């Protein structure tokens, strides 16, 4: 971005921020709110700006949907719908708040709606998810947990209730802060840690039980 700095003789030069300082301030703001320029452009009808927004946050949005819905096809469908709704209502979005959290909250609510509608999960959905989750690119790259361990962790994870899965996915998988999670879920930040402990304890018990069975 080009900055035109007009100096005024009435003010000492030291009081006027230099163009470098202004550029630095703008760069800091862009770093803090990387979505802002694209959101403004998308609001004016620039679809490639919106595509850039989609590309930048599609993975966590799809990831959360998949962990909540446990079906790749439904997760993809719901994540697309969340982005579409975000686009349709961009004028209501406050660009000072993180764009990814806003879309995340929309996606989460769509997932919960679908879960409410869904009478009960079909067994083939679990099988589909087992094949999908460990195949993530990052997991393969890191290779930190071997396939068997990861499968048993994902398997135990998928048996947890929705409210436990969402809090674990947001905190551990997506590395969100408790404040961000509280904003997405719509609860007080102080309750998130307790939810995490409860969910982790359920997961530990589930894993212990499955180890005993095997």
């Amino acid at each position, binding site marked *: 971005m080009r900055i035109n700095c007009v100096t005024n003789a009435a003010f000492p030069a030291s009081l006027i921020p230099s163009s470098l300082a202004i550029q630095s301030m703008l760069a800091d703001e862009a770093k803090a709110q990387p979505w802002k320029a694209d959101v403004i452009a998308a*609001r*004016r*009808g620039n*679809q490639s700006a*919106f*595509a850039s927004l*989609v590309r930048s946050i*599609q*993975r*966590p*949005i*799809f*990831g959360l949907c*998949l962990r909540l819905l446990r079906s*790749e096809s439904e997760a*993809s469908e719901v994540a*697309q719908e969340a*982005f*579409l*709704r975000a*686009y*349709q*209502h*961009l*004028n*209501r*979005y*406050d660009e000072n*708040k993180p764009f990814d*959290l*806003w879309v995340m*909250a*929309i996606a989460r*609510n769509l997932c919960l709606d679908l879960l409410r509608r869904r009478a009960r999960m079909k067994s083939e959905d679990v099988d589909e998810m087992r094949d*999908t989750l460990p*195949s*993530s*690119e*990052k*997991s393969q790259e*890191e290779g*930190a*947990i071997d396939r068997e*361990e*990861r499968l048993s*962790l*994902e398997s135990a994870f998928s048996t947890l209730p929705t409210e436990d899965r969402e809090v674990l996915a947001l905190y*551990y*998988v*997506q*590395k969100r802060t408790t404040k961000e999670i509280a*904003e997405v879920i719509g609860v007080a930040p102080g309750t998130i*840690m*307790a939810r995490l*402990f409860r969910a*982790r*304890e359920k*997961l*530990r018990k589930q894993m*212990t039980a499955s180890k005993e069975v095997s």
Partner: protein
Amino acid sequence: MTQGCPDIEVLLAEVVEGSGPLLEHARACEHCSAILEEHRQLEKDLFRLADPLPPPDFTQLVMARVAAQRAPMHLNVSLGLAIAATAFGLGIFTLASAGGGVSTVGALAGSALITAKSFWVGTQKAVSLLWAAEALPMAVSLFIILLICLFALKRLVGDSRVFSEARISG
């Protein structure tokens, strides 16, 4: 769990705080320290999980759906107010500069007010007479008009449910 062992959630909260009587107990208790160790290991494993990649054509699918939509309407309230204020100011200026225009507009406004009042009174009388004579057809007609208005309003507003649910103030 042995007798005297604390609730695990309370113990975990103390682990985060870094000190406390329950933590002292856990250090001495084999059962509690084993559970805490399992939690530590579980945390490590959970932190290593990653989000799966979306389908390769995900962005294209989203953008195809976006392209089928109308461009989002951006309501610029301040710009609208500025335009309205400018138009109003120009109107006043034109009237003032025309000389005598303001009094003409005042007379026209007064006349319009009287006409509107007589129209309102006449309409009220007509409606009450019609209601006395044909109440049922009138009620049905009003109901149909109401339904059409509501349908039109719904189409105009669209689906705004997402914002009440998103819980992020816009």
